[in-house]
């Protein structure tokens, strides 16, 4: 196990009690091999260490104190957050950036309930995290004891599974099972609630014996010969196919297989928001993001398609628009690991229920290349290309500087200056959609964003988690002025942990996406959307984080350079156009082709001259 002996993290930690970290860590790891009597609290950390956990994000409190007391003996680094929601988002960002299971720790009662938003965020986006909560002693469970809350009851609908542990001897087994559940099949969050007496009692710890039963795949996974043959037939005979690539492409590690399918059969690829990164944006067959704020040509291609090949995506309403008018002319092939997603929103013609990579490996040999008499996709690709029209000139760096600063400029410049190689962690709203449109991601796990739940306040803590998972990567937070304030307390965590991340606040003085809806659908009644904010540069400064305000396009490059070259975290406050809107937009309840297009006089409309 490669995670052993990782005592260096402990040396860096500010825990003054860690008198002899190396010796203690070695002891802790010895427990993995020889059954030893430990307290429940020690079993908790020993099991986490055994599962390969090196970092956890948490906040102490009464009911979890025994666990915190035992932490110093184990090679696990603890990041102290400022609010438990931050801990859950950090574990989430950690998991999204690394592909490993993220871990959050909180105490009972309010500590546990504060995790809930973060747990739901992970649930909706299928992110493997394990949340550990303390609870009151098992003798007083259910008596409304101080800081007691039924957190397994509360989180039941937003976890993949949860456990209540009230015996030290159950702990190792439950925790190992929790990790298995979190990362297997369709991943998701698991919560383990541990009573205080279970942390204090002792039991024999035997890591090997606590190993869960082998993972049982969902019994309704089904990839039949006939289904594969039918899918291959549909692909071979299609004239206007589109691949819809979702989050599952990355979860299953099927990037190569999707790419091979696209290239071999000359099929264009549309991406869901969470699918971004699974297929290179610069690839000639990549159409970009689909759905509510997807590019017009992607959505038109889907509406005109005669075949959709859905790969690891779930036909979310933000992707389909009005279901009754969705891709009416298309046959649909759905390749998906979760049988409960089949025919949930969109009725499909062929369902291949299994791991995407495995299914594609079975499917690909049946799809011939063009040389082998496979399909010729050139006519369809030309049709799509023609439908792009004037908006195809996506490189806006040479747009005349009109003295205004548009968020799109910021995204574009960030993309250009980071060579598309940074991990971008976005919040939720207009900036999130602009990022998806203008920052061209080439690699998996470079865009971290809350898609399903749409959780404002996600970006800053998730970025901290991402940076801790990938310390060698450049990490940027992009957040709106609204969402940033929801979890801005985590600026202090950045300082305490000495984390180098760059923060771009896209500040338009409004809750921008809500304002946009009010502009389009509520007669510009800007109720409760104008937003008075603190001076974010001063706020950062109060935390000891340097920053700078950016008001003009011409200032962007120097400011971004300054942030990137700073060895410390850096905040840029981009004062962008106040009433800019994200285009195109499909109004809620409308069909995919019924887009609100960019206005004719939009300053972001590129012309051929801008090349």
């Amino acid at each position, binding site marked *: 196990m490669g995670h052993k002996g990782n005592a260096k993290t402990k040396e860096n930690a500010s825990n003054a009690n860690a008198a002899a970290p190396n010796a203690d860590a070695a002891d802790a790891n010895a427990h993995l091999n020889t059954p030893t009597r430990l307290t429940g609290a020690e079993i908790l950390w020993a099991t986490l260490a055994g599962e390969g956990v090196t970092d956890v994000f948490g906040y102490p409190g009464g009911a979890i104190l025994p666990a915190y007391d035992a932490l110093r003996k184990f090679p696990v680094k603890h990041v102290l957050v400022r609010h438990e929601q931050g801990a859950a988002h950090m574990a989430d960002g950690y998991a999204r950036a690394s592909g490993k299971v993220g871990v959050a720790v909180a105490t009972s009662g309010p500590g546990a309930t504060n995790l809930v938003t973060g747990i739901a965020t992970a649930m909706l986006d299928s992110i493997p995290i394990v949340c550990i909560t303390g609870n009151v002693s098992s003798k007083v469970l259910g008596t409304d004891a101080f800081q007691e809350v039924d957190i397994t009851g509360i989180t*039941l609908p937003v976890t993949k599974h949860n456990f209540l542990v009230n015996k030290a001897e159950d702990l190792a087994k439950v925790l190992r099972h929790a990790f298995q559940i979190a990362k297997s099949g369709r991943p998701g969050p698991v919560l383990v609630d541990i009573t205080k007496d279970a942390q204090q009692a002792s039991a024999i710890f035997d890591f090997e014996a606590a190993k869960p039963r082998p993972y049982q795949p*969902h*019994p*309704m996974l089904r990839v039949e010969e006939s289904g594969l043959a039918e899918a291959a037939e549909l692909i071979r005979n299609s004239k206007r196919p589109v691949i819809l690539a979702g989050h599952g492409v990355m979860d299953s590690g099927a990037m190569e297989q999707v790419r091979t399918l696209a290239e071999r059969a000359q099929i264009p690829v549309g991406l869901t928001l969470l699918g971004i990164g699974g297929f290179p944006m610069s690839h000639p067959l990549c159409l970009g993001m689909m759905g509510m704020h997807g590019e017009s040509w992607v959505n038109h291609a889907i509406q005109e398609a005669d075949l959709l090949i859905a790969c690891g995506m779930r036909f979310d309403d933000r992707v389909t628009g009005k279901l009754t008018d969705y891709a009416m002319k298309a046959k649909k092939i759905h390749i998906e690991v979760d*049988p*409960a997603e*089949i025919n*949930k929103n969109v009725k499909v013609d062929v369902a291949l229920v299994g791991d995407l990579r495995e299914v594609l490996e079975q499917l690909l040999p049946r799809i011939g290349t063009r040389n082998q008499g496979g399909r010729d996709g050139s006519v369809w690709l030309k049709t799509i290309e023609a439908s792009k029209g004037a908006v195809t000139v996506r490189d806006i760096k040479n747009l005349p500087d009109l003295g205004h600063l548009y968020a799109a400029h910021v995204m574009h410049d960030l993309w250009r200056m980071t060579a598309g190689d940074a991990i971008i962690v976005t919040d939720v709203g207009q900036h999130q959609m602009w990022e998806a449109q203008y920052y061209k991601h080439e690699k998996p796990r470079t865009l971290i964003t809350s898609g399903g739940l749409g959780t404002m306040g996600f970006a800053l803590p998730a970025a901290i988690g991402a940076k801790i998972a990938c310390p060698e990567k450049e990490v940027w937070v992009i957040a709106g002025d609204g969402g940033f304030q929801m979890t801005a307390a985590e600026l202090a965590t950045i300082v305490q942990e000495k984390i180098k991340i760059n923060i771009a606040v896209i500040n338009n003085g409004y809750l921008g996406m809500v304002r946009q809806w009010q502009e389009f659908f509520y007669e510009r009644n800007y109720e409760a959307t104008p937003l008075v904010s603190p001076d974010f540069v001063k706020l950062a400064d109060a935390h000891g984080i340097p920053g700078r305000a950016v008001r003009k396009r011409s200032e962007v490059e120097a400011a971004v350079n300054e942030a990137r070259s700073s060895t410390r975290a850096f905040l840029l406050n981009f004062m962008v156009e106040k009433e800019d809107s994200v285009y195109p937009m499909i109004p809620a309840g409308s069909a995919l082709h019924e887009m609100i297009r960019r206005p004719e006089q939009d300053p972001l409309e590129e012309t051929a001259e801008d090349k």
Partner: protein
Amino acid sequence: MLHTFVAYVEDLPGVLTRVASLFRRLNINIISLTVGRSERAGLSRMTIVAEASAEAGHRIRASLFKLENVVDVDDIAQAPSVTRELALIKIAATPQNRGQIFDLAEVFRARIVDLTSESLIIEMTGVESKIEGLIEILREDEGRVLELCRSGKMTMRRGHHLSSVVRAMGVSEAESAEREAELAPDIVTGEVE
């Protein structure tokens, strides 16, 4: 349409909540749910009857399987099966008029399991329609039905069709349905009383 699911679940605290919560989330009303021990140690057997669209069956079954404590799920659908319900009915009956109830019980093959000077209890098992038939007749006499307790449906497929058995036999469900149709055409048609 009415869906009937048979689920084997771990016999642990909170499992019923998880199953019930799944239906709640899908906004599906559970019409009846019976739980009890099964032939497998540590596993309880549930029969869940719910009203939902015809297409919902697949998703409900798939979602039930996703619950960590659910070991096996069978969607009985239209498959040949035996369904029974138990009813206890307390009737106001005096020595003067209880004879009529005795006759009725005999016709319905029900049993009298308790008898006092003011009331008696009828125990009856059978298919839903038979139980409702008896209740309907008893209710013709207003005020006579004092208490009514029904177990909800318990369902078992005919033959060896539990999905775990089917899987163990290595045949797909479609094949097993075909085989079923070939092997037992006459049993399919009727309830054996």
